[in-house]
């Protein structure tokens, strides 16, 4: 995302103009834009006009619309963001108060304004929002590390794209593969059919150019991780090799970037195990994802050891923070960014203030995990918030709720 203009006031209100450049930027926009904000973007609106004769005509006109955001609709698969709200500026074709849904588009600027009302309405550009903005406007281009992962088991494959901030499940391939039987060769046949379908789907999702002319193309190929329990991934790798050497030579470009790793199952949550494997770490070193996964593993380890130096759940973490356990020297507050997406302003304020407090007052570390990654999902399972503590605390019974 490109930052075009930045006019954030000291009090937290102000506007920024941003230009999304790639699909993941839409996800950032989705996290930045909150209900109540003012969004200005180009819009195409269909105008119906009635002539004096009574005949009607419709025309599509381009407008610059400012809307007060009411709701957001994000489609993670196609990375499309639709922002609905009421129009705030009057144009030739629209009136104030009419509803409109803006479809944010790649490479088209939009301006986002957040207000801090005197009576506490609106949260403005709080620390989390500014952090998110920094994440979104990553000028160094460090986060190019992306990978495609196929997590599979017999008859089941999940094709997903691992980005810096999220993992998108692109497609799930599910097929019924006959089991081994006496005197039946159906199993092998079923498996090669399954490999074939998976490969076709994978190439389609990767938009991989399989024409023979593409062999000399210099287009970089993202790392392709094949993971499965048993021998399925290895079998798939072998299948790709055989296809590359026989029918589709263009696949040879793909072969060097394939990494076969072990996973416990073919389900998506095995991805965390995949990303921890040394072979993958070498390729995707120090991605945000890898750091987040590591953090979650550390947390789970503490929890497992029953040292009482780890806790999870909203109330538990808040009480730990109150006791000053999330301080300097190992205290880490782990928050899922899902909490900041809350429609409820008070809810968001609660978490933002907790984060601010830990960072500024307690001196602990704060890590915001993306809920669209596997680690974030694990965190969500724990209530969206967890903490590593500097000293063990005896937890009192939380029977009250």
């Amino acid at each position, binding site marked *: 995302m490109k930052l075009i203009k930045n006019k954030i006031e000291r009090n937290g209100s102000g506007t920024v103009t941003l230009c999304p450049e790639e699909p993941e930027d839409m996800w950032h926009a989705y996290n930045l834009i909150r209900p109540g904000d003012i969004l200005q973007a180009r819009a195409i609106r269909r105008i119906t006009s009635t002539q004096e004769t009574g005949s009607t005509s419709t025309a599509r006109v381009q407008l610059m619309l400012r809307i007060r955001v009411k709701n957001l609709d994000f489609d993670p698969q196609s990375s499309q963001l639709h922002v609905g709200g009421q129009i705030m500026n009057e144009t030739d074709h629209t009136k104030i108060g009419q509803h409109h849904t803006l479809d944010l588009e790649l490479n088209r600027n939009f301006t986002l304004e957040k207000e801090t009302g005197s009576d506490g309405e609106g949260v403005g550009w709080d620390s989390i929002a500014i952090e998110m903005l920094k994440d979104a406007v990553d000028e160094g281009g460090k986060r190019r590390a992306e990978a495609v992962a196929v997590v599979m088991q017999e008859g089941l494959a999940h094709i997903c794209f691992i980005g810096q901030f999220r993992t998108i499940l692109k497609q799930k391939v599910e097929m*019924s593969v006959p089991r081994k039987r006496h005197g*039946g060769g*159906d199993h092998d046949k079923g498996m090669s059919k399954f490999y074939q379908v998976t490969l076709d789907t994978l190439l389609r999702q990767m938009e991989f150019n399989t024409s023979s002319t593409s062999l000399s193309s210099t287009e970089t190929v993202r790392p392709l991780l094949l993971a499965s329990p048993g021998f399925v991934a290895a079998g798939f790798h072998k299948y790709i090799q055989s296809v590359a050497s026989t029918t589709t030579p263009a696949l040879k470009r793909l072969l060097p970037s394939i990494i076969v790793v072990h996973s*416990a*199952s073919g*389900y998506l949550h095995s991805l965390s195990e995949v990303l921890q494997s040394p072979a993958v770490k070498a390729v995707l070193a120090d991605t945000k994802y890898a750091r987040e996964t590591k953090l979650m593993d550390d947390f789970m380890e503490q929890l*497992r050891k029953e040292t009482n130096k780890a806790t999870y759940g909203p109330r538990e973490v808040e009480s730990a923070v109150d006791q000053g356990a999330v301080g300097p020297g190992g205290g880490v507050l782990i928050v899922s960014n899902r909490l900041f997406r809350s429609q409820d302003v008070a809810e968001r304020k609660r978490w933002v203030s907790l984060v601010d407090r830990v960072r500024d007052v307690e001196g602990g570390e704060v890590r915001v995990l993306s809920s669209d990654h596997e680690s974030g999902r694990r965190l969500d*399972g*724990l*209530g969206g918030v967890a903490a590593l503590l500097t000293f063990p605390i005896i937890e009192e019974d939380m029977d009250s709720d």
Partner: protein
Amino acid sequence: MSRHRVKNMSYDEEDYEDDGYDSQDPEEQEYLQQCTQEVLTQLQTGQPSIAATREEVQEALWHYYNDVDKSVNFLRSKRAKELQKKQSVPAAAPPKPKGQTVPEYYPIPPSSLSPHPAHFSAADFFRDSPWLNVPAHRKAEILVESLYPRLGLLGGAPEAAGKVSKLAALAAARKKKEGDKGASANTSTMSGFPSGQAPTSTSEPNVAPLSLRERLAANGKQQKRSDGLQSPRTLGKASHSGAGSVSLKVPSPEPQKLESLSDKPVDEEKTIAIDEGEIAQSAASNIRAPPSTFASTIVGDTTQPRMAEPSHLYSNTLDLMKIYGQDLAEPFDFTGPSPDDVVLNAQNSAKGMKSKQTAAKAAGDKKPQGDLATGMSNLNVGEKVNIKSKNLDVLSEYHKSNRKNAMNFAVIGHVDAGKSTLMGRLLADLKAIDPRTLDKYKREAEKIGKGSFALAWVLDQGSEERARGVTIDIAMNKFETDKTVFTIVDSPGHRDFVPNMIAGASQADFAVLVIDSGTGNFESGLKGQTKEHALLARSLGVQRVIVAVNKMDSVNWSKDRFEEIEQQISGFLTTAGFQAKKISFVPCSGISGDNVNRRSEDPNVSWYKGNTLVEELEKTEPYIHALDKPLRMTIGDVFRGSVQNPLSISGRIDAGSLQMGDQILTMPSGEKATIRSLEVDGEPSDWAVAGQNVVLNLVNIDPIHLRSGDVICRASAPIANITSFTAKVLAFDHLMPSMVDIHRGRLHMPGRISKMVATLDKSSGAVVKKRPKIVAPGNVARIVVEMDHAVPLEAPTRVVLRSGGETVAAGLLE
């Protein structure tokens, strides 16, 4: 008119097997009604007034393409004909042509002259070419017989029921004659006494098998004899009837033949006396050359009657019939099929087709109608898959059947403990597989340098399993002892395939835990899957376990080693929840077969006095299954059984019973299917009960609705699809809210522990701590598990929760 005709024609072709009228569109029907009404009025008001049935009128209209005038004409003449016939038949005299009985313009409607394009074929075109004429008796066997004699385009008026027209008969006879002639042509021309030929040729067809057309002719024989008297005919071509009943002139292009012709009638007893006029007439008319191929094609030459007697129309030089060498014995009688019909008839019968006309006229044609009815019933053979249930009382059948006890046992243990080999040895020693197959495996295994795996190949059938020497999926195999039928469920030991092992163990009544006694191997196994498998088996409801201490030959049958293992394992198994009396130990060696089926003769084993593995298996008490509960069966595999059974599923019935013809419901898809047939332990059967391993051949369902892991039940007592459940589980590892894989037999799906309700006291089940943060291994807890997709689960089902390749918990749904 032409527009409608065109429509009719297309119907003719498309709905050839249907009654064309039924498929007429409303517009046409309406038009037909109009015309019918008009014709009826005209008939009544005209002179003389004639009554005609609606059907008749419509019939006529159909033939005249809704031309009202022509239909009226036709009906009038038909009435007149009937009248005339009534008078003439008793008299057996040639009919006197009467002016008013004759169609005014054409003896045959012009439209019938143009051959029906749909019926036009090359075969017909060359039908009268002598070089193609194989004698009738030679081709009789390959002729396709039509189901019904076909009636003609203009013929079959209701009054003509049962009769086949003279024309048809003539046509048939003539055709046959042609064949005869082809055979006898040489002799007749050479001898110069063709008349002598007549008796032979007439007798011949009686010997020859009846062709279709002959049958047609025979149908009309009776009538023909009398008819023949009144209307002797000559044919347009050089042939005469062979039936003997009808004498036909064989006018030949050659003059000398013509002479002989006049003699011929004398030879034939039954021949009609042909009056002089006729003979003269025929002689006169036969001076012409035979009709050209084209002409024959147009007019349908062979089947066209010729006028044997001058009609009042005879002198009409404009008569198309006459130009083509056709004579009419009498004004055309419309009761029979028209010449075109005869042609079409012949063609259709040759093609084995049923004509539209036949169907259309069925109402007026009694005999063909009967044929038609049977024909239709033949056609209405059901195509729907309809399986009849025998409505057995399966439970009483089961009690009556007195089967041997049937038991499943799972073979579990660490990878490379020798599970598959031990079971291969068991099967080989019990002669459950034939030695030749085993030899083959041995050869093949040695070829790839894995000679010791030969026995395991009995169960490891997959190509990958053999190549890698590792069992990947469960294998089922059965063998019988004197008392019991055992089904082996050989499980994979590798940790990656524990899901498959769960599927196997969930089908088992008891387990055989195979332990590698080799130094170091036992210890590593205990840490590995030996422990996990044993715990899983216990969690899945297995109560009895036989511990086969395998590879004892590798430790020289050391008693100390055996006792060490026995002590450690029994200690572990009792903590896992097995009762001490339900655990037994057998030292054995799968590769050599000692103490498997036969007692070891090795002197080192003399210290062991206990049972062999097979004896130990037989000691197991049969397990009671829930026969009278609602049907539940987890699909183990979906596959293509054979050509007859393109969709089969296998599995073990968990509860209830089923039989052939039952309708079942698959969950979670909620689709219904019918059991076409079923197999119990590889034997066809009509029914099956809980505890049996079955293969169900299904129909009326799409295979995409069936996946392994789905549950079969009845629509009357379905299993519910749920997205979350509460379970009481035993934690094998630290439990905290996290993502888990949920396993239930073959069924496995992703889910997450969303809430930990409480930790419970192990023995009493009382709540120890509410809302624990984490549950330590070995504790019992009540947890809530949520899933992304609805799956068929119900209490009390045993589930296993795994995470990161480890079993974290196992328990019971609440």
